[in-house]
């Protein structure tokens, strides 16, 4: 056994895992995809923009917790998406815009999540959801090659995979369908939780290969989407999946300032009821909507997941430099 102290130090530094999760091929793939995204939007006349990572407010969304920091007495929220800032640009007359930036979400770390990730977000004035679906599918095909495409609704997918109709069946039926999956945890689930559980545990694995868009999420999960014109039980939203992995979330954007202010207030009241941290409402976003947000659709995509799928990998760690505990 060696007693050389330098050798002992070297042995110790070998024991510390300092290496990146991604290999050189993954780094090159990522760089190539970033360039491809920029070329795609340049060809279509969509302007690249940058907005701050630190904002005076964060999201009030019940299922997203913000990370925040202090500068002197001021609190800044690390943005969970560039949504609010980009809508203020749209209201100021930017026209179609996209952004590739970092977004932050507390507590989200796993095979397909990280508290810090690269987000691709873009907005299209004048587009409806069908037009945005076309563009989303075109971008995905460009980044990872042609794949089978399928469009469905949450209702159709849930009925097919679980026998549950989210628009008709009562809360008891939903809970009983969840019980075999989670046991007594089912008793603590509300209607939306049950739908989320069935979606992640049963529907998603059954979506199959290729690009699948799913529309018709419940109105209670509208977030900042308007409600569907023909059915107020559902939001004008879609999610897009590649090989069963969720990669994007799109809205026909809510443009009604009063409704936006009311949703912020409802989120904050529900946060207070559940004992969750309060987040100030974004008055500047409400003011921008009051001034006038053009009728538009927008979508946010998890760029790291796109790299993962293009690489044929099945965890983010292998396509990110320093994922999770490596950071």
């Amino acid at each position, binding site marked *: 056994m060696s007693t050389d102290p330098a050798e002992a130090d070297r042995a110790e530094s070998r024991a510390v895992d300092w290496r990146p999760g991604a290999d050189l091929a993954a780094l090159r793939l990522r760089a190539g995809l970033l360039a491809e995204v920029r070329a795609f939007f340049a060809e279509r006349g969509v302007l690249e923009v940058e907005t701050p990572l630190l904002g005076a407010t964060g999201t009030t*969304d019940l*299922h997203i917790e913000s990370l925040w920091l202090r500068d002197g007495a001021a609190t800044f929220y690390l943005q969970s998406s560039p949504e609010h800032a980009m809508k203020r640009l749209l209201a100021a007359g930017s026209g179609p815009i996209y952004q590739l930036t970092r977004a932050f979400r507390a*507590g*989200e*770390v*796993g*095979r*397909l*999540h990280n508290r810090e990730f690269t987000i691709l977000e873009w907005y299209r004035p004048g587009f409806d959801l069908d037009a945005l679906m076309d563009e989303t599918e075109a971008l995905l095909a460009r980044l990872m090659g042609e794949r089978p495409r399928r469009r469905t609704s949450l209702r159709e997918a849930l009925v097919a995979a679980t026998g549950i109709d989210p628009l008709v069946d009562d809360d008891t039926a939903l809970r009983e369908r969840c019980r075999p*999956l*989670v*046991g007594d*945890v089912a008793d*603590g*689930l509300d209607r*939306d*939780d049950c*739908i*989320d*559980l069935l*979606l*992640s*545990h049963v529907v*998603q694995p059954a979506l199959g290969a290729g690009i699948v868009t799913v529309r018709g*999420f419940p109105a209670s*999960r509208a*977030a900042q989407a308007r409600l569907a014109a023909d059915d107020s039980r559902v939001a004008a939203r879609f*999610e897009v999946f590649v090989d069963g992995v*969720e990669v994007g*979330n799109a809205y026909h954007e809510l443009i009604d300032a009063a409704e936006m202010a009311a949703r912020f207030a409802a989120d904050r009241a529900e946060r207070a009821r559940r004992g969750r941290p309060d987040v100030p409402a974004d008055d500047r976003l409400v003011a921008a909507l009051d001034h006038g947000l053009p009728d538009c659709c927008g979508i946010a995509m998890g760029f790291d997941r796109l790299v993962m799928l293009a690489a044929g990998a099945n965890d983010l760690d292998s396509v990110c430099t320093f994922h999770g505990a490596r950071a």
Partner: protein
Amino acid sequence: MATYSTNEFKSGLKLMMDGDPFSIIENEFVKPGKGQAFNRVKLRNLKTGRVIERTFKSGESVEAADVVEVPMQYLYNDGEAWYFMHEESFEQYPADKNVVGDAANWLKEQDVCDIMLWNGSPIGVSPPNFVVLKITETDPGVRGDTASGATKPATVETGAVVKVPLFVDEGELIKIDTRTGEYVSRVKE
């Protein structure tokens, strides 16, 4: 009561569920786009060895299990229990057949094993990866046959039966990999 929040979940963490201690094998964080997050977890029941899957709402807390692994010296078997001694406190811990399980095949007096204690009581015994045991019974050795690869059964001092090469003889010591139960080599006394 110590608890773990789901965001502390990782493999190896010991939890109490339905009155039994469990160890996390795999933890998957799942979260639909705008919805409730869940932790989908594979766990091993440390008493029965059975593996189950369980889903928790993210943010929930779960009671921690007081489970530790302690190296102890195996002392003797009195026909009902196997006795192990803590190497520092010299305290003795009896473990019955259910707890010792297949490890009984490889327990030799004075060998040091890892004993899993739950609330201070043994619930599992891991023998050393390699043990040296004496052959008490086998067919006579075939001299010089070191190449054919053929084997024969041999009973060792613990009563376990191991496949050994034909040239190995009664009374010899052999090294065994306890994880596979396979013969590794002859050992000179």
